[in-house]
């Protein structure tokens, strides 16, 4: 893939829209950015938690993309399980995401039961 100035818009998009490592990484970066936006901008704790799941999914996508690439790099790697390692880490991320969601939602429920709100503008006991 070449710079936009050389390839023209169509060529550039074609390069980006083909199934390549960089495309996958770009997609993951975009999803991560959207998730971060959600976490930062939204006031609803629940939606913030959902956005965190988006970010975690982006990271999983990165791991799996590199796993796909590394499986064919076998002899050059010191770790024979490098490729599988990426997928196993993605699995671990799923597990951690589940744990995080369980605890996070429990906190949300507990807080809501006491204050009848999950809006971060009203959850600011630490102000000053």
């Amino acid at each position, binding site marked *: 893939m070449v710079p936009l100035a050389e390839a023209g818009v169509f060529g550039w998009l074609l390069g980006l829209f083909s199934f390549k490592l960089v495309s996958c990484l770009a997609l993951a970066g975009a999803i991560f950015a959207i998730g*971060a936006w959600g*976490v*930062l*901008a*939204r*006031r609803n704790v629940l939606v*913030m938690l959902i956005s965190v799941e988006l970010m975690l999914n982006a990271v999983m996508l990165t791991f799996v993309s590199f796993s796909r690439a590394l499986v064919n790099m076998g002899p050059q790697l010191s770790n024979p399980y490098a490729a599988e390692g990426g997928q196993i880490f993605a699995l671990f991320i799923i597990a951690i995401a589940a744990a995080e969601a369980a605890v996070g939602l429990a906190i949300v429920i507990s807080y809501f039961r006491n204050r009848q709100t999950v809006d*971060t*503008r009203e*959850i*600011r*006991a*630490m*102000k*000053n």
Partner: protein
Amino acid sequence: MEFLKDILPEWITAADKFRPVYANGLFLIPLLPLLGFLTNAVSRGKLSAGVSGAVASIAAFLSFVWAYLCFASCAGPLASVDAMGGIHPAMKTVPLHAVYGTWIEAGGFKCSFGLMMDQLSGVMCLVTGVRTLIHIYSMGYMAHDKSVARYFSYLNLFLFSMLVLILGDNLILTFVGWEGVGLCSYLLIGFWYEDGEKAAAGMKAFVFNRVGDLGFILGIFTLVAAFGTADYIATTGKIGTYTKPVVGPRKVIEVDEAAPEGKRERLVVVMPDHPGLLDYAEGLSMVSTADSMAKLPLGYKADRGNFDLSGTMGPKVFPAGWTFKFAITLACLMLFIGACGKSAQLPLYAWLPDAMAGPTPVSALIHAATMVTAGVYMVVRMAPFYVMAPDALEVVAVVGACTALFAALIGLTQTDIKKVLAYSTVSQLGYMFLGAGVGAFALAIFHVVTHAFFKALLFLCSGSVIHAMSGEQDMTKMGGLRKYLPVTYWTMLIGSIALAGIFPFAGWWSKDAILANVLAKAEHDSMYWILYLMGCVGAFCTAFYSFRLIGLTFFGECRASDEVKHHIHESPPSMTVPLMVLAVFAVISGWWLHADLVTFLFIGKEAVQNAENEHVHHLNLLITSAAALGGVIAACLIYIKGGKIPKPAQTRNPLVRLSFNKFYLEWFYDHVVTGVFAIFAEALHLFVDVLIIDFLIVNGVGKLVRGAGGALRRTQSGLINVYATGILVGALVVLFYLLRG
């Protein structure tokens, strides 16, 4: 080794195949008292007095038995090499040595956790065998105390520390035991801590020991700085590379065939020999001939492979500007300061008499027989260093002689029965150091052994007397106890004769031999005439005060109050049996061990054994016997026949007052030394504590934090999104920093 053949079973001495078992099992010797300590410490208050005493005594006894077996095995190969003939006895023994792992490893410095039993530590271990008797005695003496378990746990902890001190194969492990016995000494002196005076006595002992320990640890640092190791075997091996049996300093080119090309020739600097110590230096010099490496005294093995002089005077490990002589003299002097503290030598003696506040068996075990001899042990253990540092040895001899005389003079006028014995202990320790100072290291240990027997006996006897007198310790209130306490009387008489140094009791053999060595030395160096004179006057005083003690306690009319008199009774068998056993040893140990022990230890062939010194021996025999007998007779005339009751507190005689008030040395400590320190401490308090720590650091930091917190508080919105934004921005900054290249 005739005396060993008497006491060792055949199957032990013959069986070399058990040696690894004994060597690897050395750890059991200290471990058993430790287990006893743990048992008593954990189950405190739950065990009855009898059970905790039994646990402690059995632990001490088993440890002694195992030490005895190990010692036998260590001396074992004697039998098999006897046939070779002509080899010095000490060279036939092979020390037991077990390394249980690396303890400290930092840079080039390495310290292993190992135990070693050679002749010296073996003999010291057996001396500690007095412990079993004292444990049994304690069961009777402490039977009515309310915290017996605490007492016995301390006692076992002390044994553990003492054995670590003795058996450790490097100075650092010895230092651990050294500190441990100091701690136990403190705990046991202040055992009855409700009594403020006794607690203060414990504190005093602790503080005095701390001064000495500082010297000790500086000595260790010096050795490590100079030689890179604190291991006994390795350091001694390194000294060996310096030594040749020649007189006068000179440099020798030594050719080592085994070394790699280009490093075969090395310059060996030979230190001037110390007159009278030639024999020992000769023993050491065998290190430099490869074929006799195994023949080192004290079981030290040559270890020259890892020490390359590279043709320069100071090996690379020496700090800049140090010479070998400077380093070794400094180290020896520092170590001797440690020995002064632990063994109550001038000027650090003052804690030992006060230490008598503890229970009497403790005085016997710790403050007479074992712990206070640790300093002597350490000096003798470092003998290879001391012979290389004649200046340091002179200091040892002078301090020893001064202490011997000084403490004996104080002992003349004391009225507290235990105080007399305490000053006597200080004085006898002075004799040991005097012996070590003239190079008679083996005789110093010999005196440790005999002194352990008769001084433990004397202390236990005094404990029996105090027990009978319902806790009264003042001799002016005793008298005529002979008919009430026959066993105590006879055993104490034996102990006193031994202490006074009357032939053929134990004390005579060792003290006479030490003085003979001083006299032999005086032929080379006139300074030693003064030391010899001090020793003889001290011997006279020793004989005098020991019979003064007997006279005041057991003869004349009983001066106790009627109530006390009514309760006087002979002690139970658990107390009298140890007395009798110790009395037997006080009689025979000198005669039994005198010839063999010294050659066995082989820390210098003693001057007294040389044929050319025969006249020295005879002259000394005359002088010391006259001094001792004179003292005994004078004391008998004054106190037994004359029935004089001393009242030193009221006397106007300035000499008596001087002696009774300990030459005002303690007054000097209390007022001058303490005063200087108080001013120093006050200045430190004002400058460091009040200004720097309190004002600047504690309050200053508090105010700074409070002010900064107040200012930064306003930036906190409490919105979680803002905090998350902060995290993300930080992460991005780090990311860009990493991707920057």
